[in-house]
C-alpha cells in the first residue's frame, strides 16, 4: 500500500482503531499557553486528574504579554490573572513553563521549532489554530480547543477522525521579491478560506523544496487560513540542518538514528491524495489582502474588486460589505492605499529571516511621517539574534519601534491595538473585522512589503525597491 507522508505519521500514532469509530491517536508534544489552558487545568483539578506526560508538555506566555521593556507593566488586571493562573497551574501539575523572564520565552510556534522541540514525524497539538506551523518539519500538527487540551493533558491522546489529504504541488521558482507569505496568500486566494476544510495539505514541488525552514513554517502556518486541519512538508536536508544542535533535538547516536527514520517520512511514489492542486510559482506576486478574510487578496499591481461588476449575488454582497468595513472605494489601485500603522511580527512572520528581510528594506530609509511602525520579534532568541546582527539599530534608525517578544498586535490581546478606522499593513495571519482592534483595518502582507509600506506610507511593490545596502 503506497502511503502519503501524512498516512505514515498518522499510522505511527494510532493507539486504537475500531471500525466505525474515530481513532485514538497519541500526541508527542503538547504546547500550552495562557489563553486556552486555564479551563483545561481547572477541569483536571475538578476531576482529580493529573497531567499524564509532563515530559511532553511545554508552556509559555505569549498572547497577553505586553511588548514594552521587560514585558512590564501588566496593567490589565484580568490578563495578569490569566498569566498568573498559568504559572500556578504549571507549578501545581509539574509542567515546564518558559515564563516572562525566561531567555526562551516567545510565541509558542516560534519557540517550539527553535528549541528543537518540534521534530519530524511527531504529532503536535496546541490550543491555538496556528499549530499548523510545525507541519513544516513533517510533523502532524494542528490546533485544538480547550476541551481537547484537557483531554491531551489527561490522556496524552486525542480522538480523531482521519482527515482527507490534499497535495499542493508548487512548480517552478518564486520570483525575486516574492516571499513564502505571498505563496501562502496566493494559495488561499486560489482555494478559498474553506478550500482546505477537512484536509491535511502536503506541500510539494521545487518551489517548496527551495524554501528555508522558516519560510516553510510561514507557509504551513497560514494553511489554517485556508481551513486546513494541518499542513506538512516532507523533511529533507534543509530540515536536518536547521535542527542540528538545537537544545531538545536528539544528539549523537540518537541523532543518527532519528535522521534515518525521518528520511523515510515522505510520500511514496504513486500514493494517492484526495485532492491535487498545482500552482505555478512563477505566477506569484507580492500580495495584499484588501478585505476581511485572508481569501480577499490581490497582487500589489491590481485594483481592489468592484462589486458592481460581479455577477454572483453572494460574492457581490460580501465584497461590498468588506470594502465598506475597510473604507476602500471599489476599484481602487492597491498601491494607492495609504497606511497608518505597520506591524512586523506574529507566529507567521517574526523569525530572524523575516526581520532580516524587513530590515534590508528599511536600511537607510525612514518611516513615513504619517505612519507608526513596530517590530515585535517572535521570541527572546530571535530578539537576541537580531540585536547581535544589529537589525534593531537599522529598525530604530528608520523610526520603527523595537519591542519585546509576544503575539502582540496580531490579535491585540495585549495593549498593542490599532484605533478605530486606522489602517495597518501587517505581517500577521488574519484580517478579520476588529482583529487588531475594534474598527481597525488590517491588510496582510509579507515582511518586505510591510517595511516598504512603512517607508512610503502606502502599499508599494517591493520588487522595484531601491535597496540602500
Amino acid at each position, binding site marked *: 500500500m503506497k502511503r502519503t507522508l501524512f498516512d505514515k505519521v498518522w499510522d505511527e500514532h494510532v493507539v486504537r482503531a475500531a471500525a466505525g469509530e474515530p481513532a485514538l491517536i497519541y500526541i508527542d508534544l503538547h504546547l500550552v499557553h495562557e489563553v486556552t489552558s486555564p479551563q483545561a487545568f*481547572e477541569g483536571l483539578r475538578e*476531576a482529580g486528574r493529573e497531567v499524564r506526560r509532563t515530559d511532553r508538555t511545554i508552556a509559555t506566555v505569549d498572547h497577553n504579554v505586553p511588548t514594552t521593556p521587560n514585558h512590564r507593566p501588566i496593567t490589565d488586571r484580568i490578563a495578569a490573572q490569566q498569566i498568573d493562573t498559568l504559572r500556578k497551574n504549571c507549578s501545581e501539575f509539574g509542567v515546564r513553563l518558559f515564563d516572562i523572564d525566561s531567555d526562551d520565552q516567545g510565541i509558542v510556534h516560534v519557540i517550539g521549532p527553535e528549541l528543537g522541540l518540534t521534530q519530524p514525524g511527531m504529532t503536535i497539538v496546541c490550543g491555538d*489554530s496556528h499549530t499548523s506551523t510545525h507541519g513544516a518539519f513533517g510533523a502532524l500538527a494542528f*490546533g485544538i*480547543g480547550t476541551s481537547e487540551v484537557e483531554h491531551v493533558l489527561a490522556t496524552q491522546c486525542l480522538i480523531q*477522525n482521519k482527515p482527507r489529504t490534499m497535495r499542493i504541488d508548487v512548480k517552478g521558482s518564486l520570483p525575486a521579491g516574492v516571499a513564502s507569505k505571498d505563496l501562502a496568500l496566493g494559495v488561499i486566494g486560489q482555494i478559498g478560506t*474553506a478550500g482546505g476544510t*477537512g484536509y491535511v495539505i502536503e506541500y510539494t514541488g521545487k518551489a517548496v523544496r527551495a524554501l528555508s525552514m522558516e519560510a516553510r513554517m510561514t507557509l504551513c502556518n497560514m494553511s489554517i487560513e485556508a*481551513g486546513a486541519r494541518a499542513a506538512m512538508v516532507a523533511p529533507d536536508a534543509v530540515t536536518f540542518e536547521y535542527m542540528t544542535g538545537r537544545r531538545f533535538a536528539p544528539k549523537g547516536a540518537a541523532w543518527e538514528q532519528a535522521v534515518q527514520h525521518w528520511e523515510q517520512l515522505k510520500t511514496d511514489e504513486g500514493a494517492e491524495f484526495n485532492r491535487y492542486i498545482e500552482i505555478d510559482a512563477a505566477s506569484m506576486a507580492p500580495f495584499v489582502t484588501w478585505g476581511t478574510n485572508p481569501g480577499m487578496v490581490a497582487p500589489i499591481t491590481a485594483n481592489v474588486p468592484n462589486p458592481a461588476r460581479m455577477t454572483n449575488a453572494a460574492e457581490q454582497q460580501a465584497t461590498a460589505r468588506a470594502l465598506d468595513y475597510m473604507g476602500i472605494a471599489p476599484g481602487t489601485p492597491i498601491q494607492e492605499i495609504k497606511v497608518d500603522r505597520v506591524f512586523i511580527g506574529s507566529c507567521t512572520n517574526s523569525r530572524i529571516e523575516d526581520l532580516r528581510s524587513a530590515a534590508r528594506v528599511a536600511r537607510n530609509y525612514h518611516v513615513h511621517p504619517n505612519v507608526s511602525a513596530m517590530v515585535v520579534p517572535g521570541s527572546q532568541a530571535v530578539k537576541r539574534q537580531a540585536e547581535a546582527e544589529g537589525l534593531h539599530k537599522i529598525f530604530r534608525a528608520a523610526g520603527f519601534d523595537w519591542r519585546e517578544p509576544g503575539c502582540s498586535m496580531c490579535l491585540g490581546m495585549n495593549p498593542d491595538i490599532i484605533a478605530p478606522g486606522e489602517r495597518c499593513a501587517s505581517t500577521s495571519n*488574519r484580517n478579520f473585522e476588529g482583529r487588531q482592534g475594534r474598527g481597525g483595518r488590517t491588510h496582510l502582507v509579507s515582511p518586505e512589503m510591510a517595511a516598504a509600506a512603512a517607508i512610503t506610507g502606502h502599499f508599494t511593490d517591493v520588487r522595484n525597491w531601491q535597496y540602500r545596502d
Partner: protein
Amino acid sequence: MQNFRVHTGIVAPLDRANIDTDQIIPKQFLKRIERTGFGEFLFYDWRYRPDGSLNSDFILNLPRYEGASILVTGNNFGCGSSREHAPWALADFGFRAVVAPSFADIFANNCGKNGVLTVALPEAAVADLMLRAQATEGYTVTVDLEQQCVTDSTGFLAKFQLDPFRRECLLNGWDDIGLTLRFEHEIAAFESRRR
C-alpha cells in the same frame, strides 16, 4: 456535557458567510479563566455600538428573535481561531444548535464537546430556513438528532448527517476523557512500545 436529543426553538437568521470566531467572541473577552459567563459578549462588536449602547439593527437585538436557540447562518461558520470561548458564548447565550451549509473544523469539534449541535444542511435548505424565519415572527423548528432531521410545523424537512461517534456522544452527553480512559491499558502499551 449537556446531552442533545431533540430540541425545538426559535430560529435567528444571521445571513452572512465566513463568520469567524473573532466575531463570535472578540479577543478582549478571552482573558477570563472561567468557562461560563461568555454569553453577554457573544457577537459583541455587532450587538453593541462602539459607545457600548445596544445596536438595535443587529438581528439578535430584534425583539422578534428574543429567546432564539437555533442560529441559522452562512457557510464556513466558525472559521479562524481555535478559541473554545466561541461555543461557550453561543451556549451561554442560549443557542443549542447552529445550522449552516458548512463549518470550520476546529469550531465544529469544539461545539461537539459542549453540547452545541452543528447541523450542516445544503445551501438551498439553509436559504429556505432563513426566508421562513424572516417571514414568520416566532418561527420555530425542531432539530432532532435521533432522526437526524430538521422540521417545522408547515412541512419543512431536511435530513442531516453527523459523524456517528459525535452523535452518540451528544445523544448521551458523554465526556470524551471518560471514554478515552477506558483504554488506559492500550495507551500504556503504546507508550511502552515506543520507549
